[in-house]
């Protein structure tokens, strides 16, 4: 097992190198570069740069070098010094920018993930054991509505409902009066009052999908002969269902938990943008729009690493949970 993990880890290195290079190229696919965006931004503010200055800036940023060379410089710095470079736009180190927003992102994503699982698994199981019952239909419809409603729309409507009908303070992470205040119980409560919308939004879409999968997996398991045998031997339904079938039905989840890793890191971009949450997602979007290539590049590199590690984790968990699968 250990050997297999090691081999896979070794494999991850070339994968990451190729992915990072491709990402680097993709970021620069749109015409123009950060200097273009910057010059335009300045001009809107009324500042004019001469062509000489623009040219100097490009050389300064190394944007005139061949892309392979730019990539080599970037990746060497990361590998040798752990230096993800400087964000042009923020004029600050990329790592500190990402780090600043990572805590809240992970917190929100984890809460909603736990929330999602906490809701979805019992409901999925129940729905499967009562297939085609009223409850099953209700859950099914809720599940599909949750899956069918675009997240940004749900976020927007919830915001409006919260604001207009419930007279709540919505949007952002807390009310402005707490923005600069030190942490206190009142502030924590205020934050709670704000995070329910993102959690509901994220959990709705997540839980909806999960309930469906859980139900389907459970149905598969419940139909198998061993379950009938267990019933025949006089075990209660609870014993039968929660012992073996649930565990088997959970296997695919456990094995895909690694896939949630990149999502944890990036948060949900769209929801965060609509709800004005200071998470990493909007930062990435902004970086891409401004062609702030080291910020975007660093971001994507981390995301890719998470994806690769997540996949690895999934495969290991899968092999662990299901001995029939041999690691290939």
């Amino acid at each position: 097992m250990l050997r297999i993990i090691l081999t896979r880890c070794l494999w991850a290195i070339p994968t990451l190198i190729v992915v990072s290079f491709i990402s680097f190229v993709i970021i620069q696919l749109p015409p123009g570069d950060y200097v273009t965006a910057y010059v335009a931004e300045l001009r809107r503010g009324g500042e004019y740069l001469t062509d000489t200055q623009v040219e100097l800036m490009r050389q300064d940023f190394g944007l005139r070098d061949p892309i392979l060379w730019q990539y080599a410089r970037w990746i060497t710095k990361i590998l040798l010094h752990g230096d993800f470079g400087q964000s042009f736009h923020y004029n600050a180190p990329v790592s500190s920018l990402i780090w600043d927003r990572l805590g809240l992102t992970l917190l929100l994503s984890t809460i909603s993930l736990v929330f999602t699982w906490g809701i979805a698994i019992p409901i999925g199981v129940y729905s499967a054991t009562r297939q085609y019952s009223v409850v099953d239909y209700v859950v099914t419809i809720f599940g599909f509505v949750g899956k069918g409603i675009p997240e940004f729309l749900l976020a927007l409507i919830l915001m409006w409902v919260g604001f207009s009908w419930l007279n709540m303070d919505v949007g952002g992470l807390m009310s402005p009066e707490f923005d600069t205040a030190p942490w206190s119980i009142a502030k924590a409560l205020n934050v709670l009052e704000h995070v329910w919308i993102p959690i509901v939004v994220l959990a709705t879409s997540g839980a909806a999908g999960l309930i469906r999968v859980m139900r389907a997996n459970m149905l598969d398991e419940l139909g198998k002969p061993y379950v009938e045998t267990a019933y025949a031997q006089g075990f209660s339904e609870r014993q039968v269902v929660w012992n073996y079938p649930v565990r088997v039905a959970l296997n695919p989840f456990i094995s895909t938990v690694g896939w949630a890793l990149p999502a944890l890191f990036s948060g949900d971009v769209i929801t965060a943008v609509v709800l004005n949450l200071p998470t990493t997602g909007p930062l990435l979007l902004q970086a891409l729009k401004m062609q702030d290539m080291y910020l975007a590049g660093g971001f994507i590199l981390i995301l890719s690493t998470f994806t690769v590690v997540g996949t690895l984790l999934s495969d290991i968990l899968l092999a662990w949970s299901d001995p029939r699968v041999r690691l290939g």
Partner: protein
Amino acid sequence: MTPETLLEVRNLTKHFPLKSPGWGKPAPLLRAVEDVSFSINKGDTFGLVGESGSGKSTVARLILRAYELTSGTVNFRRADGSVTDISRLDDRALRPIRAEMQMIFQDPYSSLNPRMTLRDLIGEPMLVHGHRKAEIDDRVAELLGLVGLRPEFAGRYPHAFSGGQRQRIGIARALALNPSFIAADEAVSALDVSVAAQNINLLQDLQERFGITYLFITHDLGMVEHISNKLAVMYLGRIVEMGDTATLLSRPRHPYTEALLRAVPQPDPRGRAARRRPPLAGEVPSAVTPPSGCAFHPRCPYATPDCARVLPELRLLGGVQVRCHRAEDLALEGVHG
């Protein structure tokens, strides 16, 4: 190979390579079948017994070329009397030979494609061997009759049938091309005793009518006693004892054979005596790291230190071949009567 021999297996070996731990290091091997040789005469029923994991199914699948051989030869006498070593033939060259050797599967559920009617299922071997449709339809009806099913059932799907009936469908399918050799892999193990008996009788009827040769694989010594005239006992990929069924069962020479016999339920009250000694203890060791010397020694009540060091040869003793250092010393208990 004598003229009566239909199939001769020599030094059959199958190693499954497992995942390599890293570059340069040899991959561990699962030694499923190790140096197995035997031959089957025309019209015989050759029994192959052993616990699960002993490699008996693998032998059958190697003979039918479901797996690639690691080494060894499989000589098969074709209907025209020629002998072919089929162990190295490719798929295309094998196809005509496949018509002459067929297999009956253990699981009557999973071995029939649920999406095909009996007509398609039984007719498939004929179809791929280029028979015409009308011919196939007639033959399917005939085969259904042969195995005791109504010819009208040809349009039905397997889900309409019971386990025993499905096994008969499998038999009909195996018979479709008039094979001279059929490997029956635990063909009745999954069935109720009475149904199993019916199907065994069917197989014997068919053997009489068409002179089919069987390789009959089972873990149940009680079963082989009825059907097979030759018998080989396998343990961890090797044949440990082989010979005439009656001789072998009445006077087993290998402790493993004795242990297997003891596991057979005896309706005879005298059988109580057999329970004086403990039944076969422990599990089959891993075929990846087989025990040194005689592979059976960790579980053998008669083992000596020598047994752990030296692998015994298969040698002829009292009309049977046996692979045991102490075969001469031991007076093992066989089936009485």
